[in-house]
């Protein structure tokens, strides 16, 4: 009898521990994959026009500037369908969009065939990943999006120059990060897809959703960021939060292209 109880105890223990492991397995596999391809392409723009690197733009305050680097992290992507279901992209997937490198600007997803009305995602890297040690892939610190002296990811980066900058070589550098409250700059973006005119997808088809990323949004709404006053910001804190608030409004879903 005692032996039986011992065996049962062992079995229960084993089952519990296996379940604990299983749970982890599930969270790793993410939502069920579907059978059509949706490419989300992030296009850099300046107030509706394509961004030309190293050409002069003008921000809301009338300040001239050029862009050399424009990079940001996208994660926690959700696609909401009109039937209320949500396609959740694996939470371990992080995408580094480098607007100067065309090969990095498209995120390729394979959601199930449904009629989708909304795209949402986070700009940045969640706090857990910021404290989890050495990462690889998009999160490799070699990508230049990691602060080595105050551990944490740069969630978004905008670099260039402006004659109004008093920094060396008239540089402008905005490295926006910080994952600890109250300075956590991770921002969630919700984009309705109705403006693209088409939200339902055919099984087996490939579709490309263009999302524009407006550089000028960094400098305006809700906070006015004047280059003359703040040409450089590269630490977590109030200013980083404000700039993140601004750039969280830079995205617009513009067009949907179907390739049968």
């Amino acid at each position, binding site marked *: 009898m005692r032996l039986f109880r011992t065996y049962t*105890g062992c079995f229960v223990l084993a089952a519990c521990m296996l379940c604990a492991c299983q749970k*982890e397995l599930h969270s790793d596999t993410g939502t069920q994959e579907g059978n059509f391809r949706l490419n989300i392409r992030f296009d850099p723009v300046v107030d509706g026009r394509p961004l030309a690197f190293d050409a002069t733009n003008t921000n809301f305050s009338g300040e001239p500037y050029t862009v050399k680097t424009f990079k940001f992290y996208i994660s926690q992507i959700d696609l909401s369908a009109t039937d209320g279901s949500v396609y959740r992209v694996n939470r371990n997937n992080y995408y580094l969009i480098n607007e100067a490198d065309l090969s990095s600007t498209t995120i390729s997803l394979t959601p199930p065939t449904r009629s989708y009305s909304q795209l949402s995602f986070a700009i940045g890297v969640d706090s857990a990943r910021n404290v989890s*040690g050495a*990462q*690889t892939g998009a999160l*490799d610190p*070699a990508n230049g999006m990691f602060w*080595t*002296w*105050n551990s944490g990811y740069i969630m978004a980066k905008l670099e260039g120059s402006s004659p109004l900058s008093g920094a060396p070589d008239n540089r402008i550098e905005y490295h926006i990060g910080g994952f600890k409250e109250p300075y956590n700059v991770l921002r969630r973006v919700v984009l309705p897809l109705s403006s693209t005119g088409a939200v339902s997808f055919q099984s087996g088809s490939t579709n490309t959703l263009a999302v524009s990323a407006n550089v000028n949004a960094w400098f305006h709404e809700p906070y006015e960021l004047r280059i003359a006053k703040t040409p450089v910001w590269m630490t977590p804190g109030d200013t980083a939060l404000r700039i993140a608030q601004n750039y969280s409004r830079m995205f617009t879903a513009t067009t949907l292209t179907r390739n049968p």
Partner: protein
Amino acid sequence: MRQGRIIWTTCSLITFIVCLIACSKSGTEKQAAGTHALAFTIPAGFPAPVYRFEQTNPLTREGFELGRKLFYDGRLSKDGNFPCSSCHQQFAAFATYDHDLSHGFNNQFTVRNAPALSNLAWMPALQWDGGINNIEVQPLAPLTAPNEMAEDINTVIGKLKKDAGYNQLFTAAFGKGEINSQKMLKALTQFVGSMVSADAKYDKVKRGEAKFTAAEQTGYALFQQKKCAICHKEPLFTDFSYRNTGLPLNPSLKDYGRMHITNKREDSLKFKVPSLRNVYLTFPYGHDGRFYSIEDVLNHYSNGVQASAMVDSLVRNRIPLTAEEKYYLKSFLSTLTDTAFVANKSFSQPQ
């Protein structure tokens, strides 16, 4: 009854192994095939470490040896002259011997005193200001600092990829696949994280293998009475807190410590409480090495603290010490020297 216990033990062991296999499939790191596991032993009386090798970075002989080679390799620095070991010397308990500030690339000084390296797996944060939150990413700070190793991560990885020896060692430690920064950092962590110092006379006394002399015993009692032990908490001899100990700002270094990380005024001039293990080997002392000897440090607490509302309440009113008390305290502190640790050949430069 006894049979039951054996079954329990067997079952538990099998369960544990099954779970290890099951869990390893779920994406957590598993030991590469053909590697030899190394045990990470928690010394008696030590708490559970913060960094858990078994969870993300299984400790293996191959990983440790690769980390050791990297630690002593100047190629991790821009001009080849500054391996990790240039500032972390084993005979100085992995601090920089006899230097307040260390030397880096192009005849530059560091802004802080190089800390001794031991028991890092227990540290919740690294650096004098606690800015680094995981031991794995700590090497990136000196590696990329323009006044230290002055290198670029991609350049270092490029150098390692071109080296046939490193290709073999990385494959042996982590299996096939490209060398990347994650593997380099995990290997370095295996090496430095394995540096456990827990065999000083103090430890032997605690284990009942040795006895304090009368002077050491008096010093140990004073260490408690004078409240040194609150911040320098046993057995790691630090409570990992950040404190302002009444050191005036060095105007040329302008180092405000913890405030650089938190942006909080109240953290101005707070620095991490350093461990006192091997303290006799790690002079000079303080975040900028301004105290050359232990006597200087004791004199600071006895009559040098610059009192202000910002200074930690434990030392604000100073800790007056007589010459005798200083003598006894130093006697006790000398029992924290772990000669086996500094002579341990497995932490020395590989031949």
